[in-house]
């Protein structure tokens, strides 16, 4: 499955790897992938997405196609959101759960047609997800195919994303609502999937194009060319992380994992208990009755200091109450923010907690989330 065959040794590369290197991106090992962490600078890239437009290579994300007459009951069985509510051309946020109600992964489920659902999954969990999905849809008349290597996925994100993409496609983008998708010609490529989705908290699109290097490179440069008048910047995973954190979007291995359940992660609104049985439902029912032991909250540092991933959180009285899952300076908000798990009695907005920043305890406050919400504007 060239050109991005999954091998056991060495880092995996997307079709744009050579382009990232040629453009001077700083590269890092991200979940076994050799990915750009930044180009011109994390803050500049973050601000480009909040105020203009940026483009990300997110081809490391995986894609599983579930196809067959029983694809809907299969998707309903393996994911927590209610896929029966989806129209063709519509997508939603969901998650694959273990019987314990904890996370295999979070996913975007796209309804391509009555018998076809596309699950977009995380890079670091690809094999695990594919194996898990295949195992759990076995009793249904459907196939689960791993299409991950067939697509280069580009995320064009920011308030100007629509203006950039408009120059490259014949599709009328205006009627595409958030979390809907369509197909059309993009950069001369017919039947390209265009989804109004992203991981930045901003308006934007994700396009799925063939993963051969010449096509991937040509489209990458055409997007940059079309975006030049809007100040487009190529963006790396560094900005992707700070953008999703400001918008309180979960990251696998941080806010969600195989030891954290849906209620704790505060993702109950995407979990449709009333839709019927699904993997994890029973445990979640019990967990709900038993009550929460910890819950995800947003913190804002109110004293000098930056709370970071896995820093400990203490009560004002002195005992350790939890841990930060993701923490960083927030480039747009210009505050130091964090997500952390704490017992419910500390989750009230305004509660003061202490974050251990190296040897010092630094004051932080529980704040409402998302930290950042994009301004509403007419289409």
């Amino acid at each position: 499955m060239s050109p991005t065959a999954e091998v056991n040794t060495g880092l995996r590369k997307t079709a744009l790897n050579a382009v990232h290197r040629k453009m001077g991106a700083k590269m890092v090992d991200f979940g076994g992938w050799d990915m750009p962490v930044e180009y011109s600078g994390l803050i500049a890239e973050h601000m480009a997405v909040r105020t203009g437009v940026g483009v990300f290579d997110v081809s490391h994300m995986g894609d599983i196609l579930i196809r067959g007459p029983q694809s809907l009951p299969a998707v309903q069985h393996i994911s927590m959101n209610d896929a029966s509510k989806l129209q063709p051309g519509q997508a939603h946020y969901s998650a694959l759960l273990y019987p314990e109600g904890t996370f295999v992964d979070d996913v975007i489920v796209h309804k391509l047609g009555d018998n076809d659902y596309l699950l977009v999954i995380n890079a670091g969990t690809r094999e695990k997800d594919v194996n898990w999905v295949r195992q759990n849809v076995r009793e249904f008349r459907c196939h689960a195919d791993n299409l991950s290597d067939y697509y280069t996925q580009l995320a064009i994100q920011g308030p100007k994303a629509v203006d950039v993409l408009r120059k490259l496609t014949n599709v009328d983008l205006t009627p595409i609502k958030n979390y809907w998708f369509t197909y059309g010609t993009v950069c001369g490529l017919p039947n390209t999937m265009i989804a109004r989705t992203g991981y930045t908290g901003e308006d934007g699109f994700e396009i799925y194009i063939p993963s051969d290097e010449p096509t991937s490179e040509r489209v990458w440069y055409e997007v940059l060319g079309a975006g030049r008048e809007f100040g487009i910047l190529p963006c790396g995973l560094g900005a992707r992380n700070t953008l999703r954190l400001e918008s309180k979007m979960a990251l696998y291995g941080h806010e969600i994992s195989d030891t954290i359940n849906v209620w704790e992660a505060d993702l109950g609104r995407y979990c449709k208990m009333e839709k019927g049985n699904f993997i994890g439902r029973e445990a979640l029912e019990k967990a709900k009755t038993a009550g929460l032991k910890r819950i995800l909250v947003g913190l804002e540092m109110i004293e000098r200091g930056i709370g970071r991933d896995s820093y400990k959180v203490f009560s004002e009285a002195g005992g350790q109450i939890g841990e930060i899952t993701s923490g960083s300076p927030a480039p747009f908000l210009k505050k130091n923010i964090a997500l952390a798990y704490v017992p419910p009695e500390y989750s009230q907005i305004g509660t003061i907690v202490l974050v251990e920043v190296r040897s010092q305890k630094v004051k932080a406050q529980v704040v409402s989330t998302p930290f950042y919400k994009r301004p509403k504007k007419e289409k």
Partner: protein
Amino acid sequence: MAFPADYRYTKEHEWIKVDGNQATIGITDYAQNSLGDIVFVELPKVGEELTAGKTFGSVESVKAVSELYAPASGKVVAINESLATAPEKINSDAHGSWMLRIQLKDAGEVSKLLSSDDYDKYVKEEGGQ
């Protein structure tokens, strides 16, 4: 990147520039580049003592924290206050953005540090350039 020939360097990427029996200390251009956008510098107070090889503060970028190691021992006589409000100066001019000035305890410590040529070789090996 060029490392000034009249500075000395540590393997932890600090530079020191001797000026009589005092010296200024900062981090190298290689260090700022690998950290990315710097947002916070934590420094000791004037009057505190640094011990060669021991941490004396930290520098934070959006994505990482890095400890600062003293290239030489001595008492802090001044800190660069402007870095508190404009830490990004380190990104734009690492070799010109001193963090603190110390009264050297033993000038001999400095001569044991890396020369600009040796440091240049060291970072090329470390960075695989």
